[in-house]
């Protein structure tokens, strides 16, 4: 295909520069001559010649009303569509092309655009003179120099009809689900930038959305009009599992509809970690921050105060870093402990802040105590005494990997809410005869 187009301008400019005003008859003759000379079909010759004069080929014009009518091999189709996604790639011979997805109320179709294409997701488009081919098992609309694309304001029939349905809940999501439809509140949102493979940087958004049924981390690969704290209906995107935790991926093609902010409880309420049990988390049925009730059965050695390499952050063993050799080191504190809630066990990981709050004094004080006593294990023992066998309420973000479940702690409290537990028992009590 690209071969064809490479030839086109040479033939075109050659002829065009000769004499501008050729009659239709002359052109027809020219077409036959080209067809014969180059051994190509009449259509191909017409296309090449007319194209070089900036004329549209007037054969087989078809206007379709619905993307489902598209068929392999169609040429010169005209249709309306909503632009869902735009990605750009580099052509083999240099230059840029665009590809992505078109959609209307019910269907979607892939496209590739080989000439200038300057629209953003969500735009309504009128596409004229595009062709359709089969590409990787599906249909693809191909747009090139002969295709004209213009944006339209009339979105009638282009907005997915699912919008009038009932949104699902975050609690019902599972890895692999596509085209999700949620009513949610954005409870956290940060703007970020990532470096793409081709060396450019791309602006993305990361955050957390929540509804009454739970929370989920989102990553949006484009900037979309959402704000922290507001409520929206989101249509599009897919859920995938990353380290055992569900994440929602969306991009600029997602449909965002603002809804009244009182549709969902306030961000503070939704932010509360959800009560969970290790068994449920290990089965991947929870996402977002969790709160667990249980006890620590072991504080692992290495918890407490130690030195890190200034270069790489690795723990120093006898002032030696495994990569950088002898280092002075920076002091830091951490805790690793085995947690048990009666349904399973997991590893707790806490940073300096957690250790400071558990020991109720700052690192400088702890550091001088350890130096005075000459016993680096004393802090591990103190943590052990504080935690092992105690009734603890912990909250944090779960991570599931090859080593099992671990939770990076955001809070740890000693004691359980007894009145709450009594209420829970009342809910179950009917099984007693």
């Amino acid at each position, binding site marked *: 295909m690209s071969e064809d187009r490479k030839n086109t301008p040479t033939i075109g400019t050659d002829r065009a520069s000769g004499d501008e005003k050729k009659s239709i008859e002359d052109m027809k003759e020219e077409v036959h001559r080209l067809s014969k000379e180059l051994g190509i079909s009449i259509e191909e010759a017409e296309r090449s010649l007319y194209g070089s004069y900036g004329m549209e080929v007037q054969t087989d014009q078809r206007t379709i009303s619905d993307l489902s009518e598209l068929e392999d091999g169609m040429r010169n189709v005209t249709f309306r569509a909503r632009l869902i996604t735009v990605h750009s790639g580099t052509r083999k011979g240099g230059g840029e092309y665009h590809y992505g997805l078109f959609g209307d109320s019910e269907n979607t179709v892939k496209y590739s655009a080989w000439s200038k294409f300057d629209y953003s997701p969500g735009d309504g488009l009128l596409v004229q003179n595009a062709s359709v081919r089969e590409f990787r098992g599906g249909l693809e609309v191909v747009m090139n120099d002969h295709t004209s694309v213009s944006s339209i304001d009339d979105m009638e029939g282009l907005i997915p009809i699912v919008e009038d*349905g*009932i949104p699902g809940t975050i609690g019902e999501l599972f890895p692999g689900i596509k085209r999700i439809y949620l009513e949610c509140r954005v409870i956290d949102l940060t703007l970020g930038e990532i470096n793409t493979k081709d060396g450019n940087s791309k602006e993305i958004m990361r955050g957390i959305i929540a509804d009454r049924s739970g929370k989920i981390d989102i990553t949006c690969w484009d900037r979309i009009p959402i704000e922290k704290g507001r409520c929206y209906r989101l249509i599009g995107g897919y859920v995938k599992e990353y380290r055992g935790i569900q994440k929602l991926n969306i991009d600029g093609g997602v449909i965002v509809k603002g809804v009244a902010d009182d549709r969902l409880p306030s961000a503070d309420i939704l932010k509360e970690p*959800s*009560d*969970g*049990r*290790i*068994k*449920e988390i290990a089965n991947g*049925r*929870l996402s977002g921050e969790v709160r667990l*009730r249980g*006890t620590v*059965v072991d504080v692992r050695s290495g918890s407490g105060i130690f030195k890190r390499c200034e270069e790489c952050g690795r723990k120093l063993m006898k002032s030696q870093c495994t990569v950088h050799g002898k280092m002075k080191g920076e002091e830091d504190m951490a805790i690793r402990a*085995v947690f*048990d*809630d*009666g*349904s*399973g*066990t997991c590893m707790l990981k806490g940073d300096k802040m957690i250790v400071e709050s558990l020991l109720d004094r700052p690192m400088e004080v702890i550091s001088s105590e350890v130096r005075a006593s000459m016993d680096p294990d004393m802090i591990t023992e103190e943590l052990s005494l504080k935690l*092992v*066998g*105690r*009734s603890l309420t912990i909250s944090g973000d779960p991570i599931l990997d090859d080593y*099992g479940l671990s939770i990076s702690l955001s809070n740890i409290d000693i*004691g*359980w809410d*007894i009145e709450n*537990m*009594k209420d*829970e*028992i*009342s*809910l*179950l*009590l*009917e*099984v*007693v*005869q």
Partner: protein
Amino acid sequence: MRRREPAMPVMIKDILFSVEDSTGEEDGPRSRHITPTGALIYRTVICGVLMEKDDIGSEDSPLFRLRIADPTGGLSFTVGRFNPGLIRSLECLSVPSFVTVIGKVTRFVSKKGNSVVTLNPEVIIPANKEERDAWHLLAVRDALARIWKLEGRGPLPAKFFEVPDPGEPRGGEETVEAANGIIKDTLMAIDKARFSKELEQIKVTIGSSDEDTEDDLEQYEDLVVQLIMDLDSGDGARWDDLVDTVEKKRLSRNIIEEVISNLLDKGLLYEPVLGYLKAV
């Protein structure tokens, strides 16, 4: 990788009445014990009062016999030279005092030929009254959740009530009685005023539902319609929200489902969309 067995909170009578279970050996032989409340335990955590601490060892091989008691019974076990870390922690324990013990459940045959159940302790630490109550409440909550699952009642009221799959308790009616005894005795010891009332109420509903179910259902109809109208914010009341509310009011889900299907038949309710209910 072999997973660590969780320490399940149970009451002492649960351990005393447990039966050794050699099934469920998917990941290697491990002796678990099935308790009357359906717990399949390997490791356990119990909290109670330390009743005895007898030094029965010699200078070279220290040995202590401990006895811990809760509202449902008492359990003896020993700490000896195989638990050097624990001997030190025993020093600061007085009798009587609250303690939490984490350990593996084991069994041995006594000189008289009886099978005796005991603990191989891993952690013994002093506790206080609040902690004791908390552990007992957790033990009872999990026991109730297991029975709920054993009875095949469908999903538990909340995700965080989920427990490891229970085993079918052995021993027929006696075991059921023991399980009920364990739950009632514990609850009475913690908050008699509250739970005696609630247990009484359950007895009343179970008694009456046996007698005149039809009347009962009609009596709930008005309540259900009212609930649906309260929950309705325009599109109808969400079925899940309704179930939540019903469960909060301590009504049986089964009865309510039957009442709703009656009301749908009568045409007093309709479903504008699947999963939503609306009153006429």
